[in-house]
């Protein structure tokens, strides 16, 4: 195993004797101790650092696990209000981007031939200083900064720094902005901010396309809240979530009900609901002062009147409206990227706010006051303006900081041309992307897991970033670079910034905030406390703003039809790649998309009816043409949308030849206009697009053979139950029969309970398992041959529940499938060499060292959760350094599978032994359960009747997958509650 040796070498350098012992297949014959032992590293013992995930603007708290000075795993920080100790699939994969082989290893300068050449830091910095000095002479605003969303230390530093350079041109650019929402807030309540949504307090949620379980605003936080709401609403015959959108995103698939209006008419539906509430006079008392105003504002939008424009019948709208007020406190969420951002985006947000006012949700489930970092994002207008300035040569030096506008802005904006007109472009990116391709100087920043910093997603949540490991390459913190450069340009700039290091800069600011600046002790204590807890968190109480006049802003012609054209194209954010930034992380490529289960490639979603009309079958290459561009990709038939809509995920078609993302698929943004028609906002739709079949089938790697249930298959394994019968315990259809006495497990009987009612299918557990268990990435070709290695996978099972007029029932079940640790496992008895057996604690053990690879166990596993090493799989340097030293790396020809993270079980027992207490419920948390944002997975000891898992397992909704086979799994699944679900299928 070459990659292991490589791994070893680096360890040898870092000097830990311990790892040699642990990881060498052919152990080296020398032990190299530290010269001076670092105080926080005990070889072989994990150290955790509290920091903040910066994969997206949500800013979840993270605990980073390091072993022997290497980052092996990222987990959520339980002390942190955002994420509450959970991470999403992208957060889990963040560690992989630390060891991304494509990362810049040194600063680079483009030479005369346009080729990057390494350059030393001092040279690079003085060069930059010179360029900036020159630009300053040119006048004001000749220097522009486009970068990721900043708050706190770096925010202050950059603003003072730019000010010193005489520039106000600083844009915080995020691909997905929340401009309409902010604007609506301003119009309705005079507050330019994104409100705080408390989904867990809502009795009923209506989402007008906001994909809050995937990428919208703060998906981990919202997933947890939504799951809690679902658990509370379990027995509600109407369910918890109604989605109003032309296409079902992952959030939509998790909804109880779905209304599919004509694209662009969502606002009308919302207004019609408001109209219905006012007309029926069921508005909440707290809304009394505003009812008349609202009534006049929404007068034109009677349900019947908008029915034609929206293609939603009046009765359904009324029903939704009644339900919305009845279930107070409820919550209406508007916006969302793939869903409904449109030229009526602001109106939609306003309509949502009106609904929330009418139902009396303001201050209950939706709160103003805290604001959100995204309030400070540059608007699409700002971007266009700057683009124009750049194009007209108004910018001498452009500094790009962790942003990739060249790729993420729709090409129609023309940013790529504009940037080529800028004489000197500097990028702080850590890895190559489309923007660095156009940069003249690259000053690679540390990875955020290697850096100092802070980020405050919203008021009251001041979150700290601290390095979990020494920088892997010759990178430098952007803060340090700015300080150094400022000190080189002029005396003034030097004075403005001061002479310090970035780390001190951050620390001083935090210490200053901690207590009275003069109290050193308190300052130090506050700093230590922040380091330990990952930041400073206090509650901010919400304000109840008064509703302003909205009538003017709501000018939609209720009878207007969307511009004609066969199809509306929707570019959806990717659950795995966000806007494409994480597309180079092989875990995210190999773990299939939660909806389509497609890996390693892009696709275009077409409704089966439309496909039939166009003579397109699954996998055909289709061309989509809009006014702005053309795309070709393989068709994927998806019934979860209107027949007049086609959709495609963003994040593919990265031009840069980074090894995994590069040249894979095509960029959905190609089809998008620079702004929505007749509005200044960004838009992720293109109406009036043409679709045609251009080519024969292309291989699409779909890891789930069949999503929908088929006639030649048996009923779906993921079961559903009607809310009415959620407490009705059905008698077991297959009472266990056995010739032999059952196992007696002396001490423990490890078991798991998975609540299908909570699971949203977000794939976080899958990525966590890859990280924890050294699961090999087999790559595109092998995935295509069905040889992926994932120990846990999310199966999507689609049930058919009849829809009621315009109200459809998605009835989707996401079934996390992993080794069931059967008491009477079919796999065990067929192994000739005892490589797999039943251990005294109820685990279905797999001893890799003993396995000779007859593969009978896998054949005999009804759940098909065993994975075989068909080849010698590698970890390209430095990816190998992420490997978890507590888990054996499996060799070719060996079977492997989930063992409930046995290394964690043994670790917890060991820890308990060492500080002499007994194992408590919750001491052991497998990686999947640890990260599950919906807290759907509970692990524990089935022997202890008081344990959480025992209680969960005895839930009336509980069942075992394929229990008729009498395998006695240790995993109990709890049926998903789906309104209108038929009686038990079998």
């Amino acid at each position, binding site marked *: 195993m070459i990659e292991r040796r490589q791994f070893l070498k680096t360890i040898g350098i870092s000097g830990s004797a311990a790892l040699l012992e642990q990881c060498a297949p052919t152990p080296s014959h020398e032990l190299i101790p530290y010269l001076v032992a670092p105080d926080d590293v005990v070889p072989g013992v994990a150290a955790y650092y509290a920091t903040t995930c910066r994969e997206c603007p949500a800013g979840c708290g993270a605990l980073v696990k390091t072993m022997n000075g290497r980052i092996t795993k990222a987990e959520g920080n339980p002390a942190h209000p955002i994420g509450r100790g959970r991470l999403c699939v992208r957060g889990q994969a963040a560690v992989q981007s630390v060891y991304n082989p494509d990362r810049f290893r040194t600063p680079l300068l483009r030479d005369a031939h346009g080729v990057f050449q390494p350059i030393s830091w001092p040279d690079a910095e003085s060069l930059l200083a010179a360029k900036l000095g020159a630009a300053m002479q040119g006048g004001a605003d000749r220097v522009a900064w486009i970068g990721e969303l900043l708050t706190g230390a770096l925010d202050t530093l950059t603003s003072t720094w730019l000010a010193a350079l005489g520039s106000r041109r600083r844009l915080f650019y995020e691909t997905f902005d929340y401009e309409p929402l902010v604007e609506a807030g301003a119009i309705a309540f005079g507050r330019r901010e994104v409100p705080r949504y408390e989904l867990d307090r809502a009795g009923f949620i209506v989402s007008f396309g906001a994909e809050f379980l995937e990428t919208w605003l703060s998906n981990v936080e919202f997933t947890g809240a939504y799951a809690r709401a679902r658990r509370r609403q379990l027995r509600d015959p109407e369910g918890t979530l109604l989605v109003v959108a032309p296409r079902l995103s992952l959030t939509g698939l998790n909804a109880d009900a779905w209304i599919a209006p004509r694209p662009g008419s969502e606002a009308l539906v919302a207004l019609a609901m408001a109209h219905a509430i006012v007309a029926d006079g069921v508005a909440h008392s707290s809304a009394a002062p505003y009812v008349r105003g609202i009534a006049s504002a929404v007068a034109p939008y009677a349900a019947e009147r908008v029915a034609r424009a929206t293609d939603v019948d009046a009765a359904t709208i009324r029903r939704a409206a009644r339900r919305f007020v009845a279930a107070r406190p409820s919550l209406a969420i508007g916006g969302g990227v793939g869903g409904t951002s449109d030229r009526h985006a602001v109106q939609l947000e306003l309509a949502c706010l009106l609904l929330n006012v009418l139902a009396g949700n303001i201050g209950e489930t939706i709160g103003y006051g805290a604001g959100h970092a995204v309030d400070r994002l540059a608007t699409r207008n700002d971007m266009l303006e700057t683009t124009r300035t750049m194009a007209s040569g108004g910018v001498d030096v452009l500094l790009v900081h962790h942003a990739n506008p060249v790729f993420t802005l729709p090409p129609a904006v023309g940013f790529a041309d504009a940037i080529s007109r800028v004489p000197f472009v500097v990028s702080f990116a850590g890895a190559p992307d489309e923007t660095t391709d156009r940069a003249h100087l690259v000053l690679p920043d540390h990875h955020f897991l290697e850096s100092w910093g802070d980020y405050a997603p919203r008021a009251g949540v001041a979150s700290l970033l601290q390095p979990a490991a020494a920088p892997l390459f010759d990178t430098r913190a952007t803060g340090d670079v700015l300080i150094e450069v400022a000190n080189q340009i002029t005396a003034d700039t030097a004075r403005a910034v001061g002479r310090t290091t970035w780390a001190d800069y951050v620390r001083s600011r935090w210490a200053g905030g901690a207590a009275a600046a003069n109290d050193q002790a308190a300052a130090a204590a506050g700093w230590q406390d922040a380091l330990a807890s990952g930041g400073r968190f206090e509650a901010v109480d919400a304000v109840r703003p008064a509703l302003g006049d909205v009538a003017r802003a709501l000018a939609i012609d209720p009878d207007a039809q969307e511009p004609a054209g066969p199809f509306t194209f929707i570019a959806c954010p990717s659950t795995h790649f966000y806007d494409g930034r994480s597309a180079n992380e092989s875990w995210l490529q190999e773990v299939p998309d939660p909806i389509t289960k497609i890996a390693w490639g892009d696709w275009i979603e077409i409704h089966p009816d439309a496909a039939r009309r166009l003579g397109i079958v699954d996998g055909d290459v289709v061309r989509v043409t809009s006014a702005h561009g053309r795309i070709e990709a393989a068709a994927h038939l998806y019934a979860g949308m209107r027949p007049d809509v086609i959709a495609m995920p963003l994040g593919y078609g990265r031009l840069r030849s980074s090894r995994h993302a590069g040249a894979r698929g095509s960029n959905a943004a190609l089809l998008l206009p620079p702004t929505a028609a007749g509005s200044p906002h960004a838009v992720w739709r293109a109406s009036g697009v043409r679709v045609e079949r251009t080519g024969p089938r292309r291989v699409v790697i779909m890891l789930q053979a069949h999503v929908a249930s088929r006639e030649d298959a048996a009923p779906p394994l993921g079961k559903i139950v009607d809310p009415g019968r959620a407490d009705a315990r059905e008698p077991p259809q297959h009472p266990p029969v056995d010739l*032999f006495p*059952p196992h007696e497990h002396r001490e423990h009987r490890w078991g798991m309970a998975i609540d299908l009612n909570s699971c949203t299918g977000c794939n976080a557990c899958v990525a966590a398992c890859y990280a924890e268990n050294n699961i090999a990435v087999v790559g595109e070709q092998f995935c295509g041959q069905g040889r992926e290695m994932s120990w846990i996978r999310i199966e999507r099972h689609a049930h058919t529940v009849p829809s009621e007029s315009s109200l459809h029932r998605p009835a989707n079940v996401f079934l996390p499938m992993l080794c069931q640790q059967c008491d*009477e*496992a079919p796999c*065990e*008895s067929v192994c000739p060499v*005892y490589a797999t*057996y*039943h251990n005294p604690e109820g685990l279905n053990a797999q001893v890799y060292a003993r396995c000779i690879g007859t593969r009978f166990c896998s054949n005999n596993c009804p759940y098909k959760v065993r994975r075989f090493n068909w080849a010698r799989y590698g970890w390209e340097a430095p990816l190998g350094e992420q490997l978890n030293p507590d888990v054996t790396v499996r060799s070719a020809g060996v079977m492997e599978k989930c063992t409930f993270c046995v290394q964690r079980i043994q670790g917890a027992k060991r820890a308990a032994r060492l500080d002499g207490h007994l194992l408590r419920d919750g001491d052991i948390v497998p990686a999947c359960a640890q990260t599950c944002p919906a807290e759907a997975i509970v692990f524990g000891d089935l022997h202890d009747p008081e344990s959480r898992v025992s209680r969960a397992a005895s839930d009336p909704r509980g069942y075992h997958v394929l229990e008729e086979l009498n395998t006695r799994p240790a995993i109990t699944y709890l049926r998903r509650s789906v309104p209108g679900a038929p009686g038990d299928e079998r």
Partner: protein
Amino acid sequence: MAIFERRDDLLAAIAETGARRVGGATAFAPAFDERILRAAGATDSPVASWTLAGGIAGAASALAFTVWTIRQWPTLVVSGKPLIPWPPLLIIAFELMILTAAAAAVIAFLVSARRARRGTRGAYDPSLSDARFGLLIPCEPARAAEIGDAMTMCGAVTWRIV
């Protein structure tokens, strides 16, 4: 030692020896023939009982061995079966029974065949494996000629003293 061309002559010759009160004659044949065997009084064989013994021994030791190995590691439980599941062990035992029984049969044959050849040294003639029959009659040299003639009478093609 007399060599015959035809089986019936041999049978006659055997009868003749009986008449002349010379016992213990050994008949040679190129192929198995029930009549010759009956005439020559080769009726019973120990092979059968050996085989039986071998079979029983095999089955017993197989059972003992498998049970013993399983008891070596009592924590290795598979599929919720009891530690010592009899159906598989019976299968193993059965196979080993057949194996040892067969081996015993062959060994028994080799041993008793060798014993049977004792005292026929030098009598053998290559033609006996082709188409001819032979009869080896032990007698005191005095009667050799007489018996030789008798054999010729019965149709022996040749006879010689060994």
